[in-house]
Each structure stands twice: as C-alpha cells, then as structure tokens.
C-alpha cells in the first residue's frame, strides 16, 4: 500500500539509466518483454517506451537489433548475420549409381529427352536425379524436341566437360572402344546371375529412395 508513495519520493532515474535497464532486462529475459512488464520491473516513474526508442536507435546497424514482436520487445541477431549461426561442413560423396547412369546417357545421347533416358535405362528416372545433375551444373536444359508434346531435352554443360577433362562430349569412348577396353565384358557369370541380378535391382531401388529423401 505504501510502496507507491515511497517510490514517488524518488525521482525517476535519468533516461540514460533507463536505457541501461531496458538493455539489461531484454538481454537477460528469455521471452520478449512487453512495455507493461518493463514498467513493472523498472523503478517507479520510468518511461520504458521512450527508453526503448533510444535503445532501438542505439542498436541500429549493429550485430543485434531491437525488434518488436507483437506487443513485446526483444533483441535478435541482425538478419544479414544469420550465417554466423551456422557451422558448415562439406562432405564429398560419390554420385549415386542412378545419377551416374543418367548422366552417362545424357552425355552419350545428348540432346536427350527424359522419355529417352528412361527407355535406355529401362527404369523410370526420378525427378530428383535430373534435378541433382542440373543443380551440379553438369546437365542443363537443351532445346525442345520438335516432336509431339515438344518435350525438353537435356545436354551436358561446359562444367561437365571441364570436370571430366573432355573437350567435347563426342570425345567419349564409343561402345566399341568400351567393349575392347573390357568395360562391357562384365556380365555376371551365369552361375551368379540371380544373386547379382537381384543386387543390381536393389541398388537401383535404393538410389531412387535416396534421391527422394534428399
């Protein structure tokens, strides 16, 4: 009962002091603080609304800002410094088998439509696989094919050629060369057919799932 009277005996602290108080309260409090609450916590006679104006100005252009959230106020990291709240680690992974095969088909058959890729691979090509290759800038959209439906085509990029040390996609070894290089002789021996055959399928399936997850 007597508290308000007692308090009013003291003059309100100078505005600079009130600014410090606002600063400290907003810094230490977990939730945004309303003016009413500031008023309740600061000494009698304080004007938190005015102090907030000063504090807001003081933090303009700083690493943290005073922001209004609904009726309440809080310090928040400046939006342009959000990247500091992240720690980036780079991880290099081998491209999935589905992606490699799709990429190979684009490289050997460009310009090639999605339907053609699917026909060659014998399985449907997930959206993610192509998107990934485009994002890596290894594959880009070519001209539309002048056939019914005018499907888009895919071609490989300069980035792709640079990465694989090719001057031209035509430099890629042909099927004949691949065969003589022993790259085509890798049919599983008849005895192991089911086993490896099954594995192959599994891998494809896995690839698909992987792509969807990412």
């Amino acid at each position, binding site marked *: 009962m007597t508290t308000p009277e007692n308090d009013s005996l003291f003059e309100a602290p100078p505005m600079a002091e009130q600014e410090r108080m606002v600063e400290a309260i907003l810094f230490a409090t977990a939730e945004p603080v309303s003016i009413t609450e500031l008023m309740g916590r600061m000494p009698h006679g304080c004007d938190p609304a005015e102090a907030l104006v000063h504090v807001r100005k003081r933090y303009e252009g700083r690493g943290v800002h005073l922001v209004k959230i609904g009726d309440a106020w809080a310090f928040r990291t400046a939006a342009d410094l959000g990247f500091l709240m992240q720690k980036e680690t780079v991880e290099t992974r081998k491209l999935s088998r589905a992606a490699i095969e799709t990429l190979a088909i684009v490289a050997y058959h460009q310009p090639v439509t999605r339907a053609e890729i699917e026909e060659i691979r014998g399985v449907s090509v997930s959206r993610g696989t192509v998107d990934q290759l485009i994002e890596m800038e290894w594959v880009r959209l070519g001209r539309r094919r002048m056939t019914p439906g005018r499907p888009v085509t895919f071609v490989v990029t300069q980035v792709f050629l640079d990465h694989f040390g090719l001057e031209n996609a035509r430099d890629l070894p042909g099927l004949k060369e691949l065969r003589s*290089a022993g790259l085509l002789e890798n049919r599983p021996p008849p005895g192991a057919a089911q086993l490896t055959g099954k594995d192959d399928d599994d891998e494809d399936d896995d690839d698909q799932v992987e792509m969807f997850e990412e």
Partner: protein
Amino acid sequence: MADTEFQEDAQTVSERVAAEALIVDVGAFEGPLDLLLTLSRTQKVDLRQISILALAEQYLAFVEQAKKLRLELAADYLVMAAWLAFLKSRLLLPPDPTEEGPSGEELAAHLAFQLERLEAMRNSAAKLMARDQLGRDFFARGVTEDVQRVRRVTYTATLLDLMQGYARIRTKDEFRPFVMDRDEVMTMEQSLARMRHLIGFAGDWTDIASYLPEGWDNDPVKRRSATAATFAASLELAKEGKIEIRQGETFAPIQIRKRDPRDDDT
C-alpha cells in the same frame, strides 16, 4: 597432568562463560583446529601476536571441562590435547640441547601459521561469496540461439564411373556366350590389355582400385587377383612410359595417370 594444570587456572568469569558456551556447541566445530581458532579470538589480538601458550591452556581447560560434563569428545580432540600439553611443556621448560626434534618455539610458530592460514581462507571464502554472482547479480543471455550445423554435400564422379555406368546400361540385354572362365584369376596380360585402352581416358590421378573390372571388386579372392594384376600392369605401363604412378605414403592408395606425351618435349 591435566588436573594440576586446571587447578592453577586463572580464568575470569567471562572466559569461563565463554568456555561453557563452547562446550555446549562442541558439535558445531569442525575439528580441533576450528576450535583453536575460535578460542584464539578470545585473546582479542592479531593472530600474528597470539600467545600459543595461553591458547594451549585454554584448549586444555576446554577439554577438562568437557570431561567434567562427561561429554564424549572425538579422538582427534584428545590427540590435539595431548600434543598441546607436550607443546606447553616444551615452551615452559628451558630448551634441552641434547633433545632432538623441533623446539617449542618452532612448533608454536607453525601452529600460529596454521591458524592464521585457516582464518585467511575463511575470510577469502567470505569475500568470494560476497562477489557479484552469475544468475544472482549479473546475468547471461536469456535466450540463446543454437548454432546450426549445416552439412553441405558435394557429389563427384570420375570419367571411369561414367563409362562404366554407360557400359552397364548398354550391355544389360546383351547375350553373353558361355566361355570357360578361369573364374577367379585375372592375369597380368588381361589386365594390361584392359588398362591400355582405359588409360587413354584417364587424364587425372586415379586410384588404381577404380580400374578393377566390375564384378572383381566384391569377392575377396577375385579382388586380390585383380588388384595384383592391375598393379603389375600399371608397373608395366609405367615402364613403357605410358603412365605415372604415385603413392602418398605406405598403404595409401596407389594412383596412376596418363603420361602426357607433351611432357617428353620439355
């Protein structure tokens, strides 16, 4: 011995009252040193000028009093009493030059040091606790932001991956006539023939493990044979000056690359 000492006690009334109060509180002391420190305060002097002799007498009187009141004192209080009685005799008797061990003054000085040190630590502890404390007088940030760990994944593939991938697709439907395979052995000649073609496409350092033919890299027996053959073929090709071989350190992957013919000119 303690009896006679107690007879000649010249305690004032107030000292006796204080001693009785101590007795009542005996449980509150943290051992004899704590009690001695409390007793020493009754001397109302700087601890550095304290009379250890007087302190010893106070302590012995305290123990005597406790005995009279049939209070059970812990053993260390009695050990201290015995030691102080010994110290007292040392301090009172003229030093005996034949006697070994530290003098009474030395022992008294050490006890005084211990008391002073304990009091200093108590004062320091009080000063420490009187400091502004985190979460009581000053505060940390109330709302914290987690540092997000962002994992950026980059994908790579080699030309060999690409070619093998393509070959895999293109040969899916091919019929392969049955031949007598020496299933699990790869010869150096086979490997050499294979590498001669492949090497033309390998401009960059590539792990020789990636030259293993597909199907030869899962089964340990086949992998061993293929690795040996590939390695031998690599040595052969290096000898011919077609490729370069390197290895970062013992057991590190062995890498090869095509030797650029232009290098020969320089």
